[in-house]
């Protein structure tokens, strides 16, 4: 789950990483009251979860005198389609230099990796592509609680030594908070010292419970409903509903729909060992999206009981046509249950997809 900038900065601050003086406001009326805390110039930053926020107009410089007008303007705007409901008002920093610092997981190295670049800012990705050597990398053994000093020396080299302290504190955030990403871009040098001018923090969804986070905000209502049943569920733009078991098989079904010229409205992965009731919930959830005209159920596995699945499909009683491909235990019984009704039972994934695409054409 992604933290917004102000939430990430709060966490970074708790770990001793210097962050700019700031105030969070939820309407332009709150600006005047918070301005007393700032010296002169401020920055207004829309708290929206979109990439390229600055380039899209989500970050505005203002003097204290025109901050109210700037805030009114920002609250009335949408940043890449996302309305602005929270704005972070920050002191403007006297930036002498911008660095890039992040910690993430290196899949092939299987370790946390620290990335540090002399030149941070909005163009870090293209810089990394053009000059890969500009981004210094260091893998840290996951069995260590601290970043070894030699790694820090090697990472920062000519940069101010106080950045070393920031690296270690950010590493503690990364480990303690079960983060997939902890990023400071830019990490700025000012006459008053080093600051995290921006902050990103993404928490591992598999660790939300032990992190005390009860609601995953990154999900839509229907996705959250799906999560309650242990399903993964994604909505798309087409007209075919897809139910599969296992991420790979479900994705592959989607690809096959694409291959045959159709497009999926949504897809739902029921996970392992789907019984009657789970299947019923899955079919109802997928059918509940208005754009779904036909539903393909593609379930494969040794432990899936096909008669249970067939019963669950009937229990769901949805108006759309349901095309069923079932392979597993009690296949014949499942076929008998669905026979003579308005369901189409097919023998392979190819057939299921072809029938589904034809049905909507």
């Amino acid at each position, binding site marked *: 789950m992604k933290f917004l900038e102000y939430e990430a900065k709060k966490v970074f601050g708790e770990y001793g990483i210097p962050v700019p003086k700031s105030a969070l406001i939820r309407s332009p009326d709150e600006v005047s009251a918070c301005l007393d805390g700032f010296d002169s110039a401020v920055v207004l930053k829309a708290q929206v979860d979109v990439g390229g926020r600055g380039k899209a107009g989500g970050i505005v410089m203002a003097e204290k005198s025109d901050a109210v007008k700037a805030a009114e303007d920002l609250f009335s705007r949408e940043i890449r389609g996302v309305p602005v409901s929270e704005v972070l008002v920050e002191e403007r920093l006297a930036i002498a230099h911008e660095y890039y610092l*992040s910690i993430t997981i290196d899949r092939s190295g299987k370790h946390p990796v620290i990335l540090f670049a002399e030149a941070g800012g909005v163009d870090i990705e293209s810089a990394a592509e053009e000059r890969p050597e500009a981004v210094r990398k260091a893998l840290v053994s996951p069995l260590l609680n601290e970043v070894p000093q030699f790694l820090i020396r090697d990472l920062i080299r000519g940069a101010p030594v106080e950045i070393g302290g920031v690296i270690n504190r950010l590493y503690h955030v990364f480990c303690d908070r079960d983060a997939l990403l902890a990023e400071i871009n830019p990490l700025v040098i000012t006459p008053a010292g080093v600051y995290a001018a921006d902050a990103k923090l993404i928490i591992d969804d*598999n*660790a939300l419970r032990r992190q005390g986070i009860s609601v995953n905000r990154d999900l839509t209502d229907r996705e959250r409903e799906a999560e309650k049943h242990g399903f993964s569920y994604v909505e798309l733009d087409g007209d075919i509903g897809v139910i599969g078991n*296992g*991420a790979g098989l479900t994705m592959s079904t989607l690809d096959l729909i694409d291959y045959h010229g159709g497009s999926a409205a949504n897809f739902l992965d029921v996970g392992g060992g789907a019984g009657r009731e789970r299947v019923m919930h899955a079919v109802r959830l997928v059918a509940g999206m208005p754009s779904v005209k036909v539903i393909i159920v593609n379930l494969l596995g040794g432990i899936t009981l096909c008669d249970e699945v067939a019963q669950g499909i009937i229990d769901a009683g949805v108006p759309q046509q349901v095309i069923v491909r079932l392979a*597993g235990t009690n296949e014949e019984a499942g076929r008998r249950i669905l026979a003579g009704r308005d369901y189409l039972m097919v023998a392979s994934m190819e057939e299921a997809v072809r029938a589904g695409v034809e049905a909507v054409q």
Partner: protein
Amino acid sequence: MIYGGRDPGIIVQGATGKQGVFHIGLMNAYAREVGGQGVVAGVTPGRGGQEVHGVPVYDSMREAMENHDASVSVIFVPAAAACDSVMEAAHAGCDLVVAITEHIPVHDTMKAVEYARLHGASVIGPNSPGLLSPGEVKLGIMPAHLFSPGSVGVVSRSGTLTYEVVDELSRAGIGQSTVVGIGGDPVIGQTFVDVLARFEDDPQTKAVVLIGEVGGNLEEEGVSFTDLPVVAYIAGVSAPPEKRMGHAGAIIEGGEGDARSKIRRLRELGVPVASRPSEIPELIKEML
């Protein structure tokens, strides 16, 4: 079997849970069919002295290893404790640890995989369906009736999609040497590189089917290290772009974790890539 002997003694951790009980039954049914030892012991802390399908259960891996000749552990322990079990198995001297458990926090996985590596144990998974060598041994939850013995190795990040491909191969008369599900999580023990190296050392394996997914670049990495003929299939061509992870993910992976660029790079390495699972048997026949 590409990990050790063809008939290893197997210990199941999480033996008394619903999944553990069910799959000890299926693994031992397979072992009886092929004349192997199957699961020789189970482990669940606090349940020592019980039996599951006639298999003795112990409180710890140490006790189980002292009383039985075993080299492999299969883990069905719930996510919160699964990584502790991986480390316990490695510490007790298992050569191979197969972690079936899904939804393990990735920080736990990184620790457990590194700890196991330092103890000389190979970890398959987590979030893996296990491995099956037709006619020899089944470690995990793969549905054995779809498999047939032969000379094609299969290595995959998926579970059910692997069964789909194995089913296609078996129907086309193409048998398998060993089928390995390495797991779908961002961090896993054995990667494509490791499994392809095992296939290369295996006299039975003549060609390999590699089943990948969007994200990362482990598929390409694996292929570039092997001399075996490989046919690939990558799921997720039509998937919506993955939610971006700041800049770090793009920098680490060169911004190319999506399926189409993965397919392009595999083709550049000379690997035929099937557009759908049903094309795999034809492509593999051309390789044999």
